[in-house]
């Protein structure tokens, strides 16, 4: 009989067991009667000899091997009954666990696709990113470097390069600029994905002056082309050129290297003029992915590429700035896209685990308190034949069941938490679309729920089975005094110290964020609206036979647009700039060189329209602002930032000094003014060396300019009127990245804020749990010690004595917890360093504040039961005996 047959035929087996034992008893009795015993006495002796038929039956059931399953069913029913009969206990326990499990599940669902799950490509671990190295940092590769690696390396099945491409589609009602990528033909092949409709790029698409072809994302295809299959093979107008749509990517495609890309074209660089260093082919603006050949390890690929970097060959001469002197940085695609958010995610993950731990400790304490009240019940069951292991299983079943109730509620917490997390997530968070409650997350939740159920039940179960049963039975009529006080106090210590770690981390992050927002951005961000205007279309191209005509048109368009915007009611000032503060400065960094020492350095270049400083509210420190007179016909003028002036000229006057910006074949710019430093990349950015020139005097006309508008009221409300004003000049020019300066300010701190909000929530919950934990244990202990307290006060102890007695009982573990937590927090703060700003990880104020906060919370939690104890009337408690 297999075990499930035994389980299935349980009833039949029970009947047979009963019959067998009955036969035994009757035979034995008959024999005894035959020996001359009285029949009643004979039956008694027979029963005595077998030692209690019920116990024998129990042991026979154990021998059956299906016992655990039968017991499980029984235990679950029993546990459910117990939980139902104690709604208060069940609610507190389940809610505490729901918070812990829900929070960890939510965090896990966010962290899992980013840190743990493989990217959604076949053999995703084989995909790597390849970077050039500049000053020890990742730098994009040039087209010729990409070509050289494609030709010379042997480690890859496929290599591909790509860069951002933002084409404007015209012809429809409103012009729309898309986010897209211009890629080499092997891009999708490297990722391992194929179009759902039409075809992938082929080598002949990616040729200099090759055919203009595009592939659409599923989302764009549905949104702009109504999911019309006939669009494949059809024509669309992008940047004034006609493109043939050759394919549509599948809906499931997750384009990890550029998540917002909706359209792709072939990049079509010119491989021919490799010795001409002034071409775009020698610019560092490509990113590169590769798929490792089977059997080639990441390290082998690194060595292969380094060998190529060290041994130039004459077929591939290199520009001095792409000489590959430091080799390459090669990382898996997953590591590459997650490296920015990893510190924040790991910190948050650690925080939620701490919270979960606190929740577990709290529930363990609850269960311990309850098992103390159930000594009598346990003793009775043992006396009735229950085995010790059976008791342990019973207690564990109860805790697991409680945990599952908590887990089910926790899934609700998690569902909502995930939504909040995604809304709160920093903009750099990769794979946002993959975040959600899926199978893996569900499995995680079930696993931790079970684990927690067992963990929180373990200590109470061991206590229940170990307790002295005779005292248990004797005391079954009332609660026993001082049950396992040591364990429970040890748990309190753990709880307080864990809460301290969480709160200190939250405090450090809070202080960092305050410091960050206290930073002066170098302008007044309130009432500022920003947006980017892109010039698009062939009329702006500079033709070889008419140099400067396109650039002139571009400048005229921006000038007219600016006039139109200034006319919008509610606008008090407006200006264009090539580089908007608090945004990615990548394309705004240029080399510069002062006449005095001819030493080159990097600066942010701002090509602005007159009135820019006045619009932003950037203070002038010396000289004058740029104005209408700094036009194409007048001597080139430049305003420099204070940091640059100080570094280059110290206390000397910088006005009148001459500087080159960008190409060396242009006239010198003379410094006419010095302005305060402006934060460019983020508020935490230290680099503030900047030069400001007028767009009219710039050596080239930027094709995209950012508009800054200062409104009299809510700047965001001006958006529609401003759009209309710009489109009244030219309806085909797209307007993108509309945002208020306040929101940009917020965005630069998004990662820290993300971590902070979570730590704050976890910290507050931890504080509450710790306080209720202390309160629960102490008030339980006061109830148990009522008689002792009564005796003490009968013997002359004053109210103050009793108060001190109870307070000391609660505050001692709390103080010990604070001490241990302090050490742990100091150690844990290492993990936060990358998220801190302007605060030491050992910031005394934070530590002091948190200790005071926790001490106060513990004090209040102790005070309530202590006050109750002090109010005990000795006459009543003693009479109750």
């Amino acid at each position, binding site marked *: *009989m297999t075990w499930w047959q*035994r389980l299935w035929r349980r009833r039949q087996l029970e009947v*047979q*067991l009963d*019959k*067998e*034992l009955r*036969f*035994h008893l009757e*035979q*034995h009795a008959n024999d005894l009667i035959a020996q001359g015993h009285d029949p009643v006495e004979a039956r008694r002796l027979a029963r005595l*000899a*077998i*030692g*209690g038929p019920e*116990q*024998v039956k129990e*042991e*026979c059931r*154990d*021998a*059956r*091997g299906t016992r655990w399953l039968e017991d499980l069913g029984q235990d679950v029913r029993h546990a459910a009954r117990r939980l139902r009969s104690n709604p208060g206990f069940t609610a507190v326990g389940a809610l505490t666990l729901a918070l812990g499990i829900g929070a960890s599940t939510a965090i896990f669902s966010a962290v899992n696709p980013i840190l743990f799950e493989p990217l959604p490509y076949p053999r995703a671990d084989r995909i790597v990113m390849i970077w050039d190295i500049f000053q020890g940092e990742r730098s994009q590769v040039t087209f010729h470097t990409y070509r050289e690696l494609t030709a010379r390396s042997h480690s890859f099945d496929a290599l591909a390069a790509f860069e951002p491409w933002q084409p404007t589609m015209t012809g429809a009602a409103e012009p729309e600029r898309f986010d897209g990528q211009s890629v080499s033909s092997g891009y999708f092949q490297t990722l391992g994905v194929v179009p759902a409709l039409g075809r992938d790029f082929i080598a002949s698409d990616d040729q200099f002056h090759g055919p203009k072809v595009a592939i659409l994302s599923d989302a764009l295809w549905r949104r702009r082309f109504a999911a019309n299959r006939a669009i494949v093979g059809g024509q669309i107008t992008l940047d004034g050129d006609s493109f043939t749509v050759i394919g549509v990517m599948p809906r499931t495609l997750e384009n990890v290297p550029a998540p917002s890309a909706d359209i792709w074209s072939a990049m079509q660089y010119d491989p021919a003029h490799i010795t001409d260093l002034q071409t775009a082919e020698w610019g560092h603006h490509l990113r590169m992915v590769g798929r490792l050949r089977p059997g080639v390890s990441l390290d082998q690929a690194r060595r292969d590429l380094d060998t190529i970097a060290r041994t130039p060959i004459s077929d591939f001469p290199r520009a001095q700035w792409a000489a590959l002197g430091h080799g390459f940085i090669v990382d898996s695609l997953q590591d590459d896209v997650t490296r920015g958010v990893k510190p924040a995610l790991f910190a948050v993950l650690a925080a939620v685990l701490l919270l979960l731990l606190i929740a577990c400790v709290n529930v363990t304490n609850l269960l311990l308190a309850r098992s103390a009240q159930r000594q009598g019940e346990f003793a009775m069951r*043992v*006396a009735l*034949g229950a*085995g010790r292991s059976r008791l342990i299983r019973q207690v564990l079943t109860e805790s697991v069941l409680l945990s599952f109730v908590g887990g089910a509620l926790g899934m609700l917490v998690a569902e909502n938490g995930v939504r909040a997390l995604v809304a709160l997530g920093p903009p750099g968070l990769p794979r946002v679309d993959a975040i959600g409650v899926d199978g893996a997350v569900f499995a995680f939740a079930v696993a931790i729920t079970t684990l927690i159920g067992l963990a929180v039940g373990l200590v109470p179960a061991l206590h229940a089975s170990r307790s002295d049963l005779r005292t248990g039975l004797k005391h079954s009529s009332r609660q026993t005094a001082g049950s396992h006080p040591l364990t429970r106090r040890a748990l309190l210590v753990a709880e307080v110290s864990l809460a301290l770690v969480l709160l200190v981390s939250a405090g450090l992050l809070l202080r960092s964020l305050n410091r960050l927002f206290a930073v002066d951005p170098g302008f007044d961000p309130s009432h500022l609206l920003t947006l980017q205007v892109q010039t698009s279309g062939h009329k702006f191209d500079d033709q070889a036979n008419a140099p400067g005509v396109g650039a002139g048109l571009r400048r005229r368009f921006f000038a007219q647009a600016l006039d139109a915007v200034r006319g919008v009611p509610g606008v008090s000032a407006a200006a264009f700039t090539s580089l908007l503060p608090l945004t990615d400065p990548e394309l705004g960094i240029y080399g510069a060189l002062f006449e005095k020492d001819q030493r080159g350095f990097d600066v942010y270049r701002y090509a602005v329209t007159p009135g820019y400083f006045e619009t932003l509210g950037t203070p002038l420190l010396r000289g004058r602002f740029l104005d209408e007179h700094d036009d194409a016909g007048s001597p080139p003028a430049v305003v420099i930032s204070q940091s640059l002036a100080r570094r280059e000229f110290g206390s000397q006057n910088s006005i009148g000094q001459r500087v080159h910006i960008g190409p060396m074949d242009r006239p010198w710019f003379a410094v006419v003014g010095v302005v305060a430093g402006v934060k460019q990349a983020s508020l935490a950015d230290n680099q503030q060396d900047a030069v400001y020139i007028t767009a009219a005097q710039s050596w080239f006309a930027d094709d995209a300019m950012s508009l800054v508008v200062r409104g009299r009221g809510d700047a965001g409300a001006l958006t529609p009127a401003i759009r209309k004003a710009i489109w009244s000049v030219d309806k085909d020019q797209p307007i993108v990245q509309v945002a208020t300066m306040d929101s940009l300010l917020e965005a630069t701190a998004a990662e820290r804020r993300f971590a902070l909000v979570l730590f704050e929530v976890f910290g507050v919950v931890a504080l509450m749990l710790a306080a209720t934990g202390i309160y629960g244990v102490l008030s339980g202990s006061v109830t148990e010690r009522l008689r002792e307290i009564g005796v003490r006060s009968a013997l002359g102890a004053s109210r103050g004595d009793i108060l001190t007695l109870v307070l000391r009982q609660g505050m001692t573990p709390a103080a010990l917890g604070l001490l241990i937590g302090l050490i742990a927090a100091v150690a844990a703060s290492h993990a936060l360093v990358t998220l801190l700003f302007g605060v030491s990880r050992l910031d005394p104020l934070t530590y002091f504040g948190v200790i005071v906060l926790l001490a106060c919370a513990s004090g209040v939690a102790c005070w309530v039961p202590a006050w109750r104890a002090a109010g005990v009337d000795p006459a009543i408690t003693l009479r109750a005996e």
Partner: protein
Amino acid sequence: MTTAKSDLPQGTLDLLIMKVVALGPVHGYAIAQRLQQVSRDVVQVPQGSLYPALHRLENRGLLAADWKQTETGREAKFYRLTRTGKAQLESETASWQRLAEAVGLILGIAEGGAR
């Protein structure tokens, strides 16, 4: 909880039961009687542990059971040894004998040394 503990060394009860059952199909009560008689009341078989042991052996496939009529016409559960049970009995008997001999030898030597 007071379970009647056998004075038998651990595992010996199973061996004795199998030996008795090996003589022919027999029910639980008869096994208890037989063990007591054969050992001349030296071995007190705790009747309480007899049935759990029987069920354990049955589950392990060493014993099989059928419901049959006794001489008195009552229905009882008769146990018999299976093929694996037989093999198990032989190997355990052999190893028990080796152990008993060895223990006897050691005890003899110890006594000799003391003399």
